[in-house]
């Protein structure tokens, strides 16, 4: 080893949003340790919001005052470029909105260690215990998401993947009602998540064996210089792809999604369905465009297959679902497929920028609508918690017209009806794909959108045109937080559907520089 050591330079300014979120999470742990129980929530909630919104403000400062950086930060480990900043902004907004849902205490178990149905559990309920650890856990998960989408080398990406996933595994098991389902979701998510990160890691090892580095730009360079090591590269790419596609829930790695979404506490489902998906797409794009961009002849056919399978499977299986959260999960799988169409639509720089801008816009609008839809799900309740079964939603339009109307509107946005934000999201991605030579994919996408529209409309018909059951679910009076989430999501869906121009332009600008290397 030579002793010429150069101190690493860390651009703290560029990493400030990340550091703020992680720092707040650490402070949150300290609050848990030292603050008296009755004060904890009143410390945790403001801390969480201040850090998330503060990080968002720091991003604005970065963009408008310092300008978008043109070189990776922290010795090439983190790339804070246009797409990263846009994705960070989206994740932070979605996280803040999801935290509004999380502040409703009654979604989470009072004491996770108490066995369901035991006397301990009753005691914990009676004395009003609560796991305020939820807030630091969410902050760690959000920090992991931010890092995952911006990591510029595979090691950083792996660490970020785990920082994002580990808190989510725990959060999934904390539902207050139907705890068996919740714990089961947690175990399934954990085992499958760990399995997939094993694949990610082995893929990373093989790529390291091929290129001698895990730096994304370095791998890209090695594609041109290293020869005779193709098996390592191709198998590595495939395994890496498995790990990443698992996280976005693309078929054939989608099996965890319905189970986990159904079992997890609904606010956490909202966070996973929006934030994790956004972060995972950021990472997927970075790996396949930056590191393996010159290998597109090899991965594109496989991606075609995966995208088609994901869209078709998501849309068709959603029809057969009888549980509202499972249905939304399959719809999320179908949307992941639509987004994959954009990932495939690569070409020259202009084409890439178009596709990227479409994906960014789609992620934003899909995320917001998703959080809104899950917020509505939390309000429709039965004796045992949320009324999951679709039959319980029959006639909701007559009992709670406003709520059912908003939900119907979200579903139409998922379906991509014009004048909702979903339309422009789909349009931007499919248009980029069509010019990128993926016309057959676009056709499959449009057909599966039509199939998907069928089951969205079916729910709407069920809500408005069938007789309400005599013992139908009660509509809980939404808390301030939940009401705010539904309002914000509905407003964003309308505004982005009628007047998407400014945000589209912002996405265009963010995408125009593409990913820095």
């Amino acid at each position: 080893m030579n002793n010429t050591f150069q101190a690493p330079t860390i651009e703290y300014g560029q990493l400030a949003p990340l550091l703020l979120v992680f720092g707040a999470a650490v402070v949150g742990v300290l609050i848990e340790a030292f603050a008296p129980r009755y004060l904890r929530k009143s410390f945790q909630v403001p801390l969480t919001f201040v850090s998330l919104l503060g990080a968002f403000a720091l991003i604005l400062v970065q963009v408008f005052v310092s300008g978008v950086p043109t070189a990776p930060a922290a010795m090439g480990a983190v790339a804070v470029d246009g797409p990263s900043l846009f994705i960070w902004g989206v994740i932070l907004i979605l996280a803040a909105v999801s935290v509004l849902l999380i502040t409703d205490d009654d979604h989470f178990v009072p004491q996770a260690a108490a066995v369901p149905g035991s006397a301990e559990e009753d005691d914990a309920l009676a004395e009003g215990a609560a796991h305020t650890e939820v807030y630091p856990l969410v902050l760690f998960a959000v920090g992991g998401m931010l890092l995952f989408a911006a990591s510029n080398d595979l090691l950083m990406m792996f660490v970020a993947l785990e920082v994002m996933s580990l808190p989510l595994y725990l959060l999934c098991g904390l539902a207050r009602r139907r705890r068996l389902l919740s714990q089961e979701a947690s175990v399934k998510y954990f085992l499958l998540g760990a399995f997939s990160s094993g694949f990610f890691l082995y893929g990373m090892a093989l790529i390291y064996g091929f290129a001698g580095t895990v730096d994304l730009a370095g791998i890209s360079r090695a594609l041109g210089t290293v020869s005779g090591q193709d098996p390592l590269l191709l198998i590595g790419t495939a395994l890496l792809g498995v790990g990443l596609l698992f996280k976005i829930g693309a078929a054939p790695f989608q099996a965890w999604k319905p189970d986990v979404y159904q079992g997890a506490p609904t606010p956490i489902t909202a966070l996973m369905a929006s934030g994790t998906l956004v972060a995972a797409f950021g990472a997927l794009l970075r790996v396949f465009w930056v590191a393996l961009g010159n290998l597109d002849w090899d991965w594109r056919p496989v991606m075609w297959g995966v995208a088609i399978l994901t869209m078709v499977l998501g849309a068709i299986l959603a029809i057969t679902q009888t549980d509202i959260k499972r249905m939304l999960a399959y719809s999320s799988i179908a949307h992941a497929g639509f987004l994959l169409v954009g990932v495939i639509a690569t070409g020259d720089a202009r084409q890439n920028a178009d596709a990227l801008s479409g994906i960014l816009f789609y992620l934003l609008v899909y995320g917001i609508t998703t959080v809104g839809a899950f917020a509505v799900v939390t309000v429709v309740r039965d004796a045992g918690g949320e009324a999951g079964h679709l039959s319980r939603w029959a006639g909701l339009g007559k009992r709670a017209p406003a709520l059912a109307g908003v939900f119907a509107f979200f579903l139409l946005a998922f379906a991509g009806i014009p004048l909702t934000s979903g339309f422009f999201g789909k349009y931007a991605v499919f248009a980029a794909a069509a010019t990128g030579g993926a016309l057959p994919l676009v056709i499959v996408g449009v057909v599966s959108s039509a199939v998907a529209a069928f089951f969205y409309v079916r729910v709407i018909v069920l809500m408005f045109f069938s007789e309400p059951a005599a013992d139908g679910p009660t509509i809980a009076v939404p808390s301030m937080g939940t009401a705010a989430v539904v309002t914000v999501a509905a407003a964003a869906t309308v505004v982005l559907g009628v007047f998407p121009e400014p945000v589209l332009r912002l996405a265009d600008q963010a995408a125009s520089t593409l990913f820095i290397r």
Partner: protein
Amino acid sequence: MTTHYLVLSALLFSIGAVGVLVRRNAIVVFMCVELMLNACNLAFVTFARQHGNLDGQIIAFFVMVVAAAEVVVGLAIIVTIFRTRRSASVDDANLLKY
């Protein structure tokens, strides 16, 4: 001669992956996942030797730490579900379907 180590690592990884798919006890499934991670470590260290740089060895450290964190979170989850059901079989966790 680093090929032997790579073959060993591929074997370990495959044994782990098959174990995850065929075993029924959540703890054993989880141990198989750990086996996969350790197979990755072996591959990293071997490639580090092959390329003559230290990246792979440092990555192995990170993987060990992440794996330890994963062990703790995972065992905590498995213990919780075991206390509820008195069983750690993944076949018994079958409430969530269709």
